């Protein structure tokens, strides 16, 4: 199995708070891997370090053997990492297709081109990507008027624009209806299979996680407490302690979140 993403001893400290503390894991090629944990466990901080939005306090991130620790997001993206955000950040003043075209323009290094019309560039490629996520019929609508679930799917199409080897998805189904969640996760699983890429995602909906993820990692208070298959994680005593023990109701809340 080829390792795509290798994370070693990754840490982020905010003053005295150890938001992420010595996290080590791998993501293999073609793997759909989930990173779960209670609120405040450090999932988003972890993601932001992987994609370069935050500089790690310590540790090393390498992509296909190359050290990418602390590189700016755009450099990491150029090396073939796509990302979707917990809160979508699409371009409100563009159409759906243009949002994808913009990423394609960047991928083909045409940002500073001043001759062609941008809305005509790579339109077919953009439509093909939108077709994959089922948004082709809305290609020419203004992005500002899309429903939230559609925005999430659009974001996925944008993340595929640079033909990534690794996709990082931060809470891809947050704020969606249960049926929509299932559809989006199925779509993600199909993409992983068809394109043989790797996906690392965080998620609060345990049904989604246990139904689709090949491997699951559990983060608690900044530390990785489990990394294995669904069955292994389910039977891990420490995980049960975190999710069920100590009088907390995380499991219940999360199941309905």
């Amino acid at each position, binding site marked *: 199995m080829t390792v795509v993403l290798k994370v070693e001893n990754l840490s982020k400290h905010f003053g005295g708070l150890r938001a992420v503390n010595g996290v080590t894991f791998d993501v293999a090629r073609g793997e759909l891997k989930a990173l779960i944990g209670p609120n405040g466990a450090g999932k988003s901080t972890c993601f932001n370090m992987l*994609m370069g*939005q935050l500089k790690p306090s310590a540790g090393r991130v390498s992509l296909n053997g190359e050290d990418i620790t602390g590189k*700016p*997001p*755009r450099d990491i*993206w*150029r090396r073939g990492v796509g*990302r979707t*955000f917990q809160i979508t*950040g*699409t*371009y*409100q*003043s*563009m*159409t759906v297709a*243009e949002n994808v075209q*913009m*990423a394609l*323009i*960047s*991928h083909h290094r*045409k*940002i*500073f*081109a*001043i*001759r*062609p*019309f*941008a*809305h005509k*560039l790579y339109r077919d490629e953009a439509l093909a990507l939108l077709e994959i996520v089922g948004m082709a019929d809305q290609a020419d*609508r*203004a*992005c*500002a*008027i899309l429903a939230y679930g559609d925005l999430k799917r659009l974001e996925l199409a*944008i993340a595929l*624009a*640079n033909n990534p080897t690794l996709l990082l998805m931060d809470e891809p189904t947050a704020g969606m209806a249960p049926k929509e969640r299932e559809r989006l996760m199925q779509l993600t699983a199909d993409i992983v299979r068809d394109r043989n890429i790797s996906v690392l995602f965080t998620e609060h909906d345990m049904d989604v996680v246990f139904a689709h993820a090949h491997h699951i990692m559990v983060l608690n208070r900044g530390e990785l407490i489990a990394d294995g298959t669904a069955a292994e994680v389910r039977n891990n005593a420490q995980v049960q302690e975190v999710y069920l023990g100590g009088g907390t109701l995380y499991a219940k809340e999360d199941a309905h979140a």
Partner: protein
Amino acid sequence: MGLFAAQLITGLANAAALFLVASGLSLIFGVTRIVNFAHGSLYMLGAYFGVTLMQMLPGGFGFWGSVLLSGLIVGLIGVVIEICVLRPVYRAPELFQLVATFGVILVIQDLTLMIWGADDQIGPRAPGLKSVVRILGEPIPQYDLALIAITPFILLALWWLITKTRIGILVRAATQDRTMVGALGVNQSWLFTGVFFLGSALAGLGGAIQLPKGGADLLMDLNIISAVFVVVVIGGMGSIPGAFVASVLISVLNVFGVAYLPQSTLVLMYVVMAVVLLIRPYGLLGREEKGGEHGQVGEPDRPIRPAGLVGRSLVAALMVALALIPVFGSNFTQVLLTDIIIFCLFAASLQFMLSTGGLVSFGHAAYFGGGAYAAALLVTHAGTPMELAFLFAPFAAGLLAIIFGWFCIRLSGVYFAMLTLAFSQLVWSAAFQWYDVTGGDDGLVNIWPSEWLSGTTTYYYFTLIVGVGGIILLRHLTHTPLGYALRAGRDSDRQAEATGINVKLVQWTGFAVAGALAGLAGGLFVFSKGSIFPNELEIAKSFDALIVVFLGGVKTLSGGVVGAAFMDGVRDWLTRLEYWRLILGLLIIAVVIIAPNGIVGSLRKGAERLGFYRGEFSE
């Protein structure tokens, strides 16, 4: 040594009024996030009310009573402004608020002229503090010492109010998180009004308290506002101790500047500001500001498309009409249209960075005037032929924009705007004070076009071709990947960076393009007038461009051009009226509140509502 001490004391005394006005502005910004450009006008009102009251109330009690009373009256005027003008625009983008307060400046200017007349008012001297004392052999006015004694008490009183009282807690809470304060049951509207009262009263006090030193005149509003902004930005927006430190710094620096570097008095303060912002982007005592609002509050911009067949035909028809003007129109019409086309290009270049790039520049005149001066300097000092000098204008302005842009792009929001303002003031003061090279106030004259372009009609055609060409180029760029990348960075900086776009580099490029095209307009301008003066670099010139972009419609592509044409056309008969500023000010305020979409945006909305026109993206 004695002279040095005397200068220091003068500087400290001058800091008093500056600090009062700056602390008021800072307070208002901290809580309401409004950049109140009319704050200098409140200061001016304080001075005028002070003069009038001091004439009515005699003696020492009358003097100090008048100062306090002026503060109170101006505070109440501030309340009226807040309720009538600003309440409706709190949720609007920064630019709208700025334009609204600019309207207030115009209104107050003309109202003051109406009430007190055009003559300067001499400030009465403070009873009991009329003489001088000798310190180290130098005469020091007693009043200066009184001011130095009073200022720390005002700082202390404000500090006590902010840190020890319930109102202060609310104000500080609102400075950090307005929404939360509202959610906790505090009536935000009245908190804002109260803060506006306090801030305005401080400005009024500042105006009245400086009367024995400076008197009252109609220029003092704009004279102080740029210094106040420098102070607030250096100190950190929203920080009162910062405003104090910066007031002292700038006042003392000014006094020493006059004494030792008389050639650079105007530049000095902006150089200090630029240096401070480069080292501490949020001012000496300021906190990091997420100023990413730009023009993106409220309804998002619509997707754009290059003009279709109908649009192109209309533009072509307009071009034919303009080309036929010399056949039918008078010489005067051609001169007027030349002016309008130049102004349209200037406004279009601002709109390119402002609307497309989300970069609100307060100092775009630097590139217009900079280009004009560059060409004029070549002609004057090197005898360069007109054609070459003309080409040099956009080149030099673009270069200037590349240099200044490198510094400005690192900041965002209000701080970006302030740094662009500082750089434009830098260029202005260089033109104004570097007499040997730029001719200073006398400007550069005899900058005429070559023989083949010298006729009014020929030059009109030249302007038409170059000007319209420039506007079309900008419009084209808006639709290219570069323009889209600018919009992407404006809409979502994070998403753009996460998909490989170097947003700062793109914005820097946009800044340079806008600067170069403004310089092109400047080149056209200087050869059409035959001369150039420092007033083409003034803040007022930058604001002219901002206002027409706004009038035309920020969230449109053609707003700048339409607004500029409208404004230049109207200005000609408007300025013949006695109180044209009042009318223009009220018009601006009305547009901000009633028709924030501007001329083009409102026409589009209206046409859509009536069913004449269905935009591709209107749902």
